[in-house]
């Protein structure tokens, strides 16, 4: 049998918890009922916080690597960095900016219970100044997941992967909130 079968023990209650959490997390009846959109359960929020805490010693590396990989694998993303002398993967401005972005992601982890409210000014920045096409948030998220998987292969289980992927998707939605 494979190792993953035994690893599942800790997470055997995963889906049971999700059912209980649906009532308090996914049904915000006041205001925006369109909020029933793959939002995070309590258990997934805890998973995200836990994994990001484990990751914190390497967060700069992950941020720098992720942005490098974004501009390498999806060269069209370099269009946002035409003001840099060198926007190639691994260059100093790319690494530095990757670290900045990762800092923002960590900040968002702290605001995981209200991403839209907590990221209001960042959303305005992206909407009115940066105007990054939201499709690129997904591409960067993918590169971040690849780096997390490379650097933390044991910890980045499928259960952690889905929680982090959902979080990054929610983060992207919050950033695009003010776009139109």
């Amino acid at each position, binding site marked *: 049998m494979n190792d993953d*079968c035994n690893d599942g023990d800790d*997470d055997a209650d995963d889906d049971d918890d999700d059912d209980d959490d649906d009532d308090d997390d996914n049904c915000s009846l006041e205001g925006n009922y369109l909020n029933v959109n793959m939002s995070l359960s309590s258990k997934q929020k805890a998973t995200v916080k836990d994994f990001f805490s484990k990751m914190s010693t390497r967060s700069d590396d992950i941020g720098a690597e992720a942005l490098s990989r974004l501009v390498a694998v999806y060269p069209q993303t370099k269009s946002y960095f035409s003001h840099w002398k060198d926007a190639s993967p691994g260059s100093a401005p790319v690494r530095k900016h990757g670290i900045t972005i990762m800092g923002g992601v960590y900040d968002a982890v702290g605001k995981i219970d209200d991403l839209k409210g907590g990221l209001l000014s960042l959303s305005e920045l992206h909407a009115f100044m940066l105007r990054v096409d939201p499709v690129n948030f997904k591409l960067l998220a993918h590169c971040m997941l690849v780096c997390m998987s490379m*650097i933390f292969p044991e910890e980045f289980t499928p259960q952690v992967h889905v929680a982090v992927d959902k979080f990054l998707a929610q983060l992207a939605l919050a950033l695009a909130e003010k776009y139109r």
Partner: protein
Amino acid sequence: MVEWTDSERAVITSIFSNLDYEEIGRKSLCRCLIVYPWTQRYFGGFGNLYNAETILCNPLIAAHGTKILHGLDRALKNMDDIKNTYAELSLLHSDKLHVDPDNFRLLADCLTVVIAAKMGPAFTVETQVAWQKFLSVVVSALGRQYH
């Protein structure tokens, strides 16, 4: 026709030559079913997919993951004509299996994450570029015969 540099060919060949098809195939398909649960719609006859643990222990899923990876072999062996190599498989996925082609991209992303975990620092930027280029050609070929 897709152009491949010698370096890209070497990267792809090297990844496949070191690949444990069973391990990587199983892990990738399981990860896809867990991270993107709507993909489970295509696996109604595969037994228990109740939660992550049962998915990870499901032997039918494991076998199918291996099958998928061996299917990728064909692209490796025909890198200069992936489009035609997969014409029939594309029709199969469209007409018989009725798979939304966006799922190919989801599985490809999961495969990349699993390979990154396996290779660690050896999964360099250049490796990822070549690997994702290869997968995007495969994904495109598999979606090509949809009508």
